């Protein structure tokens, strides 16, 4: 049987795994913004509860994906080097701390939950960064991209479930711009990676272009909503609220789409690379670069 394919799309992590990065990213971003709301005296419990739900839902999806789900507790065995272990460890502290903050409306607990949520998101980013077999995930810029995307998704959802006042629009706009910069940086890094051509091609497909368009439209909607609110001296009036909702929803959905593509479609294995060809035949031959 002739085997000519040396790089192929990874088949192990499907939408369930992508769901962990989607739920975990949006959830942890939402927890961080909810904690900021708590500090500012704004209502935060619903947003915090939803954020925790996102994290828990993502982890549940992963549980459904692993081959031996009843051994799931073994995931905590390797904190010394495994970012997956660290992600799990942060999560089992984050969930109860967050639940306490929701139930008691305790601001310090909400802040602690935000700290843990940021750590959880960082672990998720490092999980991808440590995947040396997948050049598209191995990119240095993936860490910033996952962090910025999580914050953009969370702050976007907060515009819907929390409030559309000036400061939340500023946070959402800042996160959206940060994510835009992170995305451009990631794309540039990918383009400079010799083994990432097929991943780049995935980000040129129609679903990827749709996600990208949603990201830009969402950013514009948030910016316009902010402009309206500022013009009205901080009062969310007229089209500001629906625009903020649309912008927030698009910020979140575009991030989900991008992550789904990144995990399930753009994850190609590292191809075999031969620095030289073997010399053969009588009298040997000249080494020829591949």
């Amino acid at each position, binding site marked *: *049987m*002739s*085997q*000519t394919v*040396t790089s*192929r799309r*990874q088949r*192990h*992590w499907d939408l369930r795994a992508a769901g962990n990065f989607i739920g975990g990213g949006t959830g942890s971003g939402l927890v961080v913004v909810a904690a900021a709301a708590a500090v500012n005296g704004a209502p935060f419990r619903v947003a915090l509860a939803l954020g925790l739900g996102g994290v828990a839902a993502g982890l549940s999806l*992963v549980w459904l*994906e*692993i*081959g*031996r*789900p009843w*051994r*799931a507790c*073994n*995931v*905590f*065995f*390797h904190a010394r*080097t*495994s*970012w*997956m*272990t660290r992600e*799990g460890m942060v999560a089992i502290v984050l969930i109860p701390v967050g639940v306490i903050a929701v139930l008691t409306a305790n601001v310090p607990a909400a802040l602690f939950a935000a700290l843990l949520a940021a750590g959880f998101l960082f672990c998720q980013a490092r*999980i991808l960064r*440590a*995947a*040396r*077999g*997948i050049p598209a*995930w191995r990119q240095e810029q993936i860490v910033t991209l996952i962090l910025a995307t999580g914050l953009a998704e969370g702050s976007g959802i907060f515009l819907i479930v929390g409030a559309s006042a000036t400061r939340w629009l500023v946070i959402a706009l800042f996160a959206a711009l940060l994510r835009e910069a992170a995305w451009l940086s990631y794309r540039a890094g990918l383009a400079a990676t010799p083994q990432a051509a097929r991943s780049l091609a995935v980000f040129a497909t129609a679903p990827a272009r749709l996600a990208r368009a949603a990201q830009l439209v969402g950013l514009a909607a948030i910016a316009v909503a902010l402009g309206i609110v500022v013009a009205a001296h901080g009062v969310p009036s007229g089209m500001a609220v629906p625009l903020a909702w649309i912008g927030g929803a698009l910020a979140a959905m575009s991030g989900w789409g991008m992550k789904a593509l990144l995990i399930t479609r753009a*994850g190609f*294995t*590292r191809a*075999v*690379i*031969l*620095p*030289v*060809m*073997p*010399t*053969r035949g009588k009298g*040997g031959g000249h*080494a*020829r670069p*591949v």
Partner: protein
Amino acid sequence: MTRYVMVADLRRCVGCQTCTAACKEGNGTPPGVQWRRVLDLETGTYPNVNRVFVPVGCQHCANPPCMEVCPSTATGQRADGIVTIDYELCIGCSYCAMACPYDARSMVDHAEYAFGEQPTAVEATRIGRERIGVATKCTFCAGRIDAGTARGLIPGQDPEATPLCVNSCISGALAFGDIEDKDGPIATLLAENQWFRMHESEGTEPGFYYVWDKGTL
């Protein structure tokens, strides 16, 4: 200190896939799973084309990225350099497969057999439930090595203590042994020929060497 490595002489490999078959038969891997593979690569453009056969599989790295990411510590490393998987600890998260630059890991979610619903007699003796839903890969036939060395045999020189793929190779392209044995055949082979290791930039220090020309650089 012993450090077992494999050497593939790319000048000799003819792509017959006998090593693939020997591994498959000996280790009872299910359909679609091959711990030892031989890639058939073509490079260049007509008329300047090359064809090369490249045996691949777990490279038993000195710094295995699969072990680094494994959350359950199921992936381990023996003192002789062989990278192992503890099937009783593995949770089947496949993170190791994502971390391996050599695409050397496999996982099946349910038992599959080569000929229908029931295992053949050979499969029945070699496929265990413990290998379902967990990561699997080439073991360098660690069981044969251990059994052989317990009898005083030398891996790479005595067939009964040598990986099946090496034993089966029709062209002598595959060699196996202790690279730390400075006067041994592996050290000599590498000293007298030019070689490379794959994806060395990842810092994995693979235990799999590809010989491509005679002489030293």
